[in-house]
């Protein structure tokens, strides 16, 4: 990992020490007086400003990375929408971006991202084929919406367009991904739930919630509309105006009938709604379900027959990044794919982009529970030691292949995005 980096990083390092030596001679008296040796400044530690959502910014990961490499990670936590906004409007305010693939349709055309040279990524060829070819265990999964395979390759390092076939440059190196579904309170619902249509079932009137991030919320709504048999979308991730109207109309009717208790926008809101029993069924994220469970409250991340809405995040580099910071960013990405971080994320219920290296850092019983859908041989603990599942429990959604193989669509940005946001506001105002 360090081999391709050394020759490049050597230059600025010596440049720095020479400069500080010069300063040293000039201001010798001052330095002697203060008792500082000039060489102190020779190897300034670099700090990478890591822009992303709070969910992916784990303190333990940053600490472990700094321990391993001496490079500091400074987390800049904002919401999903704000990550995109910063990438478009202030590309020099970060050194590494952690964003979702669907945001790329907005960021890449600005030219603010630099293609990542896969030749510098040690485990690039081991990245799961879900990203490169859109398959799980050799079978193609749903590619409605912004599937990563559509936007993962760039035509060149400084390209503003996506490549149709694999190239040397990736827009984002995948880090974590998962497939979302409905979260339910089995103790309060007391019957099996098997379809997205249940979200708008009047049985749960006043006890349902949906995600209030329009571009994702509308996808959940589309899953419901399809499950109710109202309409079959050619591409849920890219609706026509008429389809947006229809979807929002369905939501408005449900809202007027008092179906929703609340809408939620951030992770903690969804956890609180569920944990307090304000809602019993809502669209939900996997780690939020885990968070409810660690409070000792029953909560299922319910697999549904229509499949999942998938999302994937990855690391990208700002176009202006260069020198030692660029090397540091590559080093971080390589370190991230090297197994420790992957195992850490797998234990939180996410999936890591390079499964092989993560497997090497996990216990066999953990791998069997998280990835193979087998009953836990012993208590399953989260990375910080909370018990997530007792021995004998099986993960919701089963194995990696069962869950990721069941993807129906991906989080997306539509061509009619502006119209969609306007209609979504209409739903909120109704």
């Amino acid at each position, binding site marked *: 990992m360090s081999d391709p980096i050394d020759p490049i990083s050597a230059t600025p390092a010596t440049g720095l020490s020479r400069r500080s030596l010069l300063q040293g001679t000039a201001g010798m008296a001052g330095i002697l007086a203060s008792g500082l040796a000039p060489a102190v400044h020779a190897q300034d530690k670099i700090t990478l400003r890591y822009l992303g959502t709070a969910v992916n910014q784990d303190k333990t990961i940053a600490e472990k990375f700094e321990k391993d490499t001496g490079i500091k990670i400074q987390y800049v936590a904002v*919401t999903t*929408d*704000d990550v*995109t*906004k910063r990438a*478009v*409007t202030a590309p020099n305010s970060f050194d590494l971006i952690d964003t979702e693939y669907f945001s790329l*349709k*907005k*960021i890449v*055309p*600005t030219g603010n991202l630099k293609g990542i040279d896969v030749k510098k990524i040690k485990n690039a060829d081991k990245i799961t084929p879900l990203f490169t070819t859109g398959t799980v265990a050799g079978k193609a999964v749903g590619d409605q919406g912004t599937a990563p395979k559509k936007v993962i390759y760039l035509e060149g390092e400084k390209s503003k367009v996506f490549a149709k076939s694999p190239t040397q440059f990736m827009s984002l190196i995948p880090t974590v991904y998962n497939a979302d579904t409905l979260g339910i309170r089995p103790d309060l619902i007391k019957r099996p739930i098997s379809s997205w249509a249940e979200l708008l079932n009047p049985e749960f009137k*006043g006890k349902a*919630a949906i995600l*209030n991030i*329009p*571009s994702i919320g509308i996808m959940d709504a589309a899953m419901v509309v399809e499950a109710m048999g109202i309409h079959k979308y050619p591409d849920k991730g890219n609706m026509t105006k008429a389809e947006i109207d229809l979807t929002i*109309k369905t939501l*408005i*009717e449900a*809202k*007027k009938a008092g179906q*929703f*208790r*609340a*809408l*939620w*926008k951030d992770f903690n*809101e969804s956890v*609180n709604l569920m944990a*307090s*029993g*304000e809602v019993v069924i809502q669209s939900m994220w996997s780690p939020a379900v885990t968070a409810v469970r660690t409070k000792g409250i029953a909560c299922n991340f319910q697999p549904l027959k229509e499949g999942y809405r998938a999302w994937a995040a990855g690391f990208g580099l700002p176009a202006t990044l260069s020198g030692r910071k660029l090397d540091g960013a590559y080093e971080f990405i390589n370190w991230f794919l090297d197994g420790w971080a992957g195992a850490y994320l797998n234990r939180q219920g996410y999936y890591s982009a390079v499964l092989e290296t993560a497997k090497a850092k996990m216990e066999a019983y953990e791998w069997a529970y998280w990835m193979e859908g087998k009953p836990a041989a012993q208590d399953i603990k989260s990375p910080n030691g909370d018990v997530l599942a007792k021995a004998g429990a099986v993960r919701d959604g089963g194995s990696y292949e069962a869950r990721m193989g069941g993807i129906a669509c991906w989080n997306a*940005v539509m061509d009619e*995005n*502006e119209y969609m*946001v*306007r209609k*979504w*506001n*209409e739903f*909120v*105002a*109704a």
Partner: protein
Amino acid sequence: MSSTSTSIAAPVADSPNRTLHAWWQAAPFTLVFVLFFLIPLGLIVMVSFWDFNEYELLPAFTLRNYFAIFEGCSTLTEHGDFCVSLSTYLSTLKFSLLVWGITLVLGFAVAYFLAFHVRSSGMQTALFILCTVPFWTSNVIRMISWVPLLGRNGLVNQGLQGMGLIETPIEWLLFSDFSVVLAFVHLYTMFMIVPIFNSMMRIDRSLLEAASDAGASAWQTLWNVVVPLCKTGIIIGSIFVITIVMGDFVTIGVMGGQQIASVGKIIQVQTSYLQFPLAAANAVILLAVVLMIIWCLTRLVDIRKEL
């Protein structure tokens, strides 16, 4: 009050040297005002006429953003509602009026108690500080602390159920108009108390005695003496409360379960989708509405004269 200010103002105008000094004294604030208010405002107005796509702003002159806001406002929607902009403004105005009315009555009562019933000035100060205690925590925290109290399984519902007053939990306590107004009143009554208390403290106590001597009842004194003399405070408090509620999106979001619309919320959603020109157009309209309200309020009282 007004006579003293004119007597100071007169000699200033006489000497050109003094005028220059006055300008210098005004300069720092003018600079701040221009830098942090006028220029940004000008930019917002400018951007509201720009075009945009998914990822960039396109400098141009187009009325498209304003048209988009009022699109469909000539007819009712198929659900029998007004268009988004109109119904959002109506709901925002409704909250402003409700909150204004309640905070006014509450704020006036509290200020009246502090100013006329509490005799010792030490006690007045102590009670006044007591009123500000809640402001030592952030207003998001003060807001969120209502949630476990009002929820379906919250303290209020549990208490009522425990006493056997209700069978099933009351649903409208949380994520409803009620909870929004409650949180606003909790957060902003202070903004009414302070200016009203301030004007009450400046009322000459002999006026009250005179009213009493002339045979006025307590209510007559209140209505014919105290209220007119507190007008300035009332108007200043009203401006605070109304402008805050008109622009709010956090309180309405948190307490309304994110399903109650407010103009601020729409602007926030649009900026998070990089639709800055649309958001700017909305902001310009909101500003115009708020300015009109303030203009109407200042018609009732000449604040500059009263201060």
